[in-house]
């Protein structure tokens, strides 16, 4: 039966047949992974971390510190927070997050199809393209014939874990006027 979900899978499979075209298509360069501040990553690959290093500043925008140095440190900490959060999720949810990154990280076989279907940026170095991509996913139709609710759900997952990671971090608390937990004694 040709359900929405199957159609999406079909789309991904037809990516293989498009491989010939793909070789002529410039693949988006996956940004290098920022250093992990001594954290040993359990879930996130260097590719995932490279992508997150570009997504995070667009998702958090003004909520990140102003100075370049503080900002870069904050992004690294957000990525470490991502890894810690995802490593505590149930195995099935971890699997879904892996699928999300496989679309985001794709710089080879799958890149053309997801980009055509999903608008994953062709270049990770252009914040305006990332903003466009995020909004495409944010506003995507949860009942889409081609992708079901996957883009909207993917957007919500990405943004939620990024927000959670940053606003759990003390460095964000000045920005949002939070004095932290009360000191008991």
């Amino acid at each position, binding site marked *: 039966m040709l359900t929405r979900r199957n159609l999406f899978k079909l789309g991904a499979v037809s990516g293989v047949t498009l491989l010939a075209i793909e070789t002529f298509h410039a693949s988006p360069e996956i940004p290098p992974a920022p250093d992990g501040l001594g954290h040993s990553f359990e879930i996130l690959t260097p590719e995932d971390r490279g992508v997150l290093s570009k997504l995070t500043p667009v998702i958090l925008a*003004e909520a990140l510190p102003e100075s370049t140095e503080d900002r870069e440190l904050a992004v690294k900490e957000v990525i470490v927070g991502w890894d810690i959060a995802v490593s505590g999720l149930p195995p099935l949810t971890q699997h879904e997050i892996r699928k999300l990154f496989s679309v985001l990280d794709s710089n080879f076989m799958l890149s053309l199809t997801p980009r055509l279907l999903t608008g994953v940026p062709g270049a990770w170095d252009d914040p305006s393209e990332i903003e466009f991509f995020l909004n495409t996913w944010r506003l995507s139709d949860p009942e889409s014939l081609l992708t079901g609710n996957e883009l909207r759900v993917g957007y919500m997952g990405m943004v939620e874990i990024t927000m959670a990671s940053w606003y759990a971090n003390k460095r964000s608390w000045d920005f949002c006027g939070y004095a932290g937990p009360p000191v008991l004694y």
Partner: protein
Amino acid sequence: MSDKQNTIRDFIAEGFQQGWKHLDASRLTSDQTLEADVVIIGSGAGGGSSAEILAQSGLNVIIVEEGPLQTSRDFHMKEDEAYANLYQESAGRQTKDRGIKIFQGRMVGGGTGISWTTCFRTPSTTLKFWADEMGVKGFSENEMRPWFEWAEKRYNIQQWKVPPNANNSTLEIGCEKLGVSWGKISRNVTGCINLGYCGTGCPVNAKQSTLVTTIPGALEEGATLISKARAEKFEINNGKITELKCRAMTPRGNAPAVQTIKIKARHYVLAAGSIGSPAILLRSENKILNPNGLVGTRTFLHPVNISGAIMPFLVKGEYGAPQTSYSDHFIETRLDNQKPGFILECPPLQPMLMATALDGHGKFHAEIMRQRPFLQVLIALQRDGFHQESVGGNVYLKSDGTPGLDYPVSKYVWEGIRDAFIAMSEIQFAAGAKTVAPVHRDAGLYHNIKEVKKAIAVLPMETLKARLFSAHVMGGCPMGEDSAKSVVNSKGHHHEVENLSVFDGSVFPTSIAANPMESIFAATAKFATELAKNMVN
């Protein structure tokens, strides 16, 4: 040793040091077989109350809990730590279509450990509906009164007399200005110092969760607590349960380990909550447990939508008892069910919870977070289950056997959600809000009531557009006297399997239409008292 450990007495940790029986299953190195009179699956509102009552009657009780044993010294009021350790799926549990995010406790203490301490007796209109429409016996207001009184005494439920924080007082002021009725909430606390961090585990043992009351009460009588063990399924022979199969969880607790624990008992009590209890019955794959396919059906959520408002004064809703004021005006005025009713309350406003509840990113999101100390937030809980177009959701098993909940929101309920957006914004503007933001993908910030009402009228009420939440999972093993229409009878006993009972919120045949914790305390105390009497004789 930190100062905190020196100054706050952690009498639960002390109890374990002095010999209460506890097995952390994640530390097992071999399979185990245990025996008891009664095994109780779950340690929350239902499991805790049942455990103490059964143990005090002299029965040998084992309590199985999937979550960790943590006590006040482990509760640091840190959101990331608490959501990861004390909630189902790191507080990321969602319905099948991802439309509703579900907050459920998973710890020794269950939902009572992370509850915001709001207590209501089951509304008399709900009890009457169960008797008139759902075939429930013995749940009239008069018959339940002694059990509410039991719960109020055992869990120290009292009206909260401390002045509300500004988040809650805004609800009061807005209602007052509009002539909308409102009231003060009763809370299950003793010596509460008004911190506001109920949702991350009470660090001062003020909250009277089952973790500090009835679970210790049962342990004091010789009960055994097993933590970090997932009850997988029942073995059935000749129409009776012969064994419960459990699996240890890994030390982190997010995945099953290899060691198993088999428990043989005279009687089995399911108290794993409205997703967990049906899941165990479904995993057992035995027709006798689910003869009419009703297990997991009629699961209710009180679906919640949210309205944020920027006030001209500091709110700082992260501090102070999180819920102290409410309005059931829109329940009381809608009992004819022409449109769904809803209750209005406030949530705590710690930054991580807030940041993840808003829709959007970038400048829009950052700007709201910058103004967070001025943010006032109302939530509306829909009264689901009282209309033929409000039948709740279905619990199902995912590919790895863990449970999910398929809860499509009906058109009827969506209209209640739209009305709730309007009601909340009216209260917020009446209380002086500068701007109001309905939490919806397509909504912005609105400056007056006319503007916001115009916007809400055309916002699509659709899944994944309006952001929905739930902290109350109810139903899934509905009770009633007609075995063709219910899973258990009005005493919580399974219709077909004589040594099985369900003593938790999954027996409710509708939502409660108020925060359900006290309803679970009272109903399960009633059930367990009768079971104890029967088992001892």
